[in-house]
């Protein structure tokens, strides 16, 4: 490595002017560089403006960092303070909320996604309308849904479940309809040409192609919902978030770090299991964007 190699570079650097004249394409072009510089300057200026607007101040950041350092010291050692079984129970509740929320969202989104798929419903108004309904539902954050459902069915995990089901209905509906739209046309044509009805075309032409994809997406969402189910407790919608918010507010930080470790462990286990199942379902493929 160290032998003749650096001398190649040294020669090249010494010969820079001639090389630049001989291979202008290799040295980028001035206008592009100027454009990039301008873009960077604009982004920098705008970011400065945004930080000023958002009351950033170095003094507050520094004092905050000092306090955070204190907090991290206070987090050790993590300890449940005798509430381990209560925490474990709420963790189970969280996983249950995530599982049931994903399941009901998937069951509701599945039939609806066919309405939103261009190749199943050729009517522009129906699939456009269905798409927009999904977009509106998706635009509202899970925490807002939780707050709304709490005021309908009262405090407790049931409200959280409905919140997860609602926000996932939008997300899964969109993903499912995209999966249906990218399905191969040929099996459908095959069923149609051998006299299959419209329903049979969907059942035997489209479904076998999309079911594994949909299953994989559901598993992925189950995992990501376990994370989001930890926060809906902050507005009183059940799960481990109730304890997490409470312990943070009273600065009982040993419990906080213990709860975070519990969540990390649960998410890791679910991650491993769902990756296994997903690989079995769809083979090795990149996870859908969450």
């Amino acid at each position, binding site marked *: 490595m160290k032998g003749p*190699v*650096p001398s*190649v*570079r040294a020669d090249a650097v010494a010969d820079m002017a001639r090389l630049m004249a001989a291979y202008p394409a290799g040295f980028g072009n001035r206008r592009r560089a100027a454009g990039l510089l301008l873009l960077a300057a604009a*982004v920098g200026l705008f*970011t400065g403006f*945004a*930080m000023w*607007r*958002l*009351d*950033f101040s170095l003094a*507050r*950041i520094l004092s*905050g*960092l000092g*306090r*955070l350092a204190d*907090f991290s010291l206070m987090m050790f050692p993590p300890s449940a303070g005798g509430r381990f079984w209560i925490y474990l129970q709420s963790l*189970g*509740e969280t*996983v*249950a*909320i995530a*599982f*049931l929320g994903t399941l009901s969202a998937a069951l509701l989104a599945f039939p609806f996604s066919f309405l939103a798929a261009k190749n199943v419903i050729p009517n522009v108004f129906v699939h456009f309308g269905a798409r927009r309904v999904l*977009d*509106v539902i*998706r*635009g*509202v*954050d899970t*925490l*807002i849904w939780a*707050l*709304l*459902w709490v*005021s*309908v*069915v*009262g405090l407790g995990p*049931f409200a*959280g*479940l*409905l919140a997860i089901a609602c926000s996932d209905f939008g997300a899964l509906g969109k993903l499912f309809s995209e999966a249906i739209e990218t399905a191969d046309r040929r099996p459908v044509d095959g069923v149609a040409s051998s006299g299959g009805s419209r329903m049979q075309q969907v059942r035997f032409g489209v479904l076998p192609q999309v079911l594994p994809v949909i299953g994989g997406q559901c598993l992925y969402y189950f995992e990501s919902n376990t*994370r*989001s189910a*930890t*926060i809906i407790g*902050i*507005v009183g919608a*059940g799960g481990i978030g109730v304890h*997490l918010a409470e312990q*943070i507010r009273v600065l009982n930080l040993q419990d*906080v770090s213990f709860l*975070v470790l519990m*969540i*990390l462990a649960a998410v890791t286990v679910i991650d491993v299991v769902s990756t296994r199942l997903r690989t079995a379902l769809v083979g090795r493929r*990149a996870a859908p*964007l969450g």
Partner: protein
Amino acid sequence: MTDRVPVAPSLPGGQAQALLAGYDRALAARRGRSLTALGVVLGCALLSAWAAEVRPGDLAANLYRFTSYIGRITPTLTWANLFGDLAEWYWNVGLWTRLLVETLLIAYVGTLVGGAIAVCLCFTASGNLGEIAWARFAVRRVLEFLRTVPEVVFALLFVIAFGLGPMAGVIAIALHTAGALGKLFFEIVENIDMKPVEGVRSSGGSWLHAVRFAALPQVAAGFASYALLRFEINVRGASVMGFVGAGGIGQELISAIRQFYYPDVSAILLMIIATVFVIDIADERIRHRLAAVESPK
């Protein structure tokens, strides 16, 4: 059963029987597997329903409340006095717009800072360019931690450390974004073509040179695309930061919901949905163009 008829006569007796029996067995095995999977899912669902205190009766009994809730948050708009009614519905539009802009800025700065952290860390965390094993392991664990702790939880803590206000929200979103994007980024880096990297290294370039001149040009478009997607997610996330006092429109929304100012709830929700909608569409346009930049390589 009728679809078997054309097959049967064309084969000598025993063979057709054997084929059909094999077909039935294969079918039965598949059905059995599907039924088992269904049973497992159903069992888990029942167990979860018990754990999550699902009471279908409650839902049925209270469902009218959801529809009546929607009825109550719907503003009264009349043709005769449309502008007057609209003005009354959006009586506080000045403050809401300002808070919505604040929400967007929180998401913007959070995505930018988090993305920058993710770019700095992802090369060390990747399997192909991260050459120091312990650093790779450590960075990956840190990213995992940042990704798993939801931004609202960070915000709860930062509101205490940095004081109430949007700064806590920005830092919370930036940290969570660093974790989420860091993972996606190092997966992109792991999929690059290694030949340019070898080229740079073999002509005496340092590790940083290899990252800058061989890896970065291959991954920049992908990074930008994921960052844009994350910006959209963060706008939604920033809209609830106000729930815990970390700035943005969330504080107005939660006080409207908690104090039963029904028309205000729908007015603010509509503003959030419209904003997310516009960003969603703009995002998709830009990402399509980025994908076009990316594909000819």
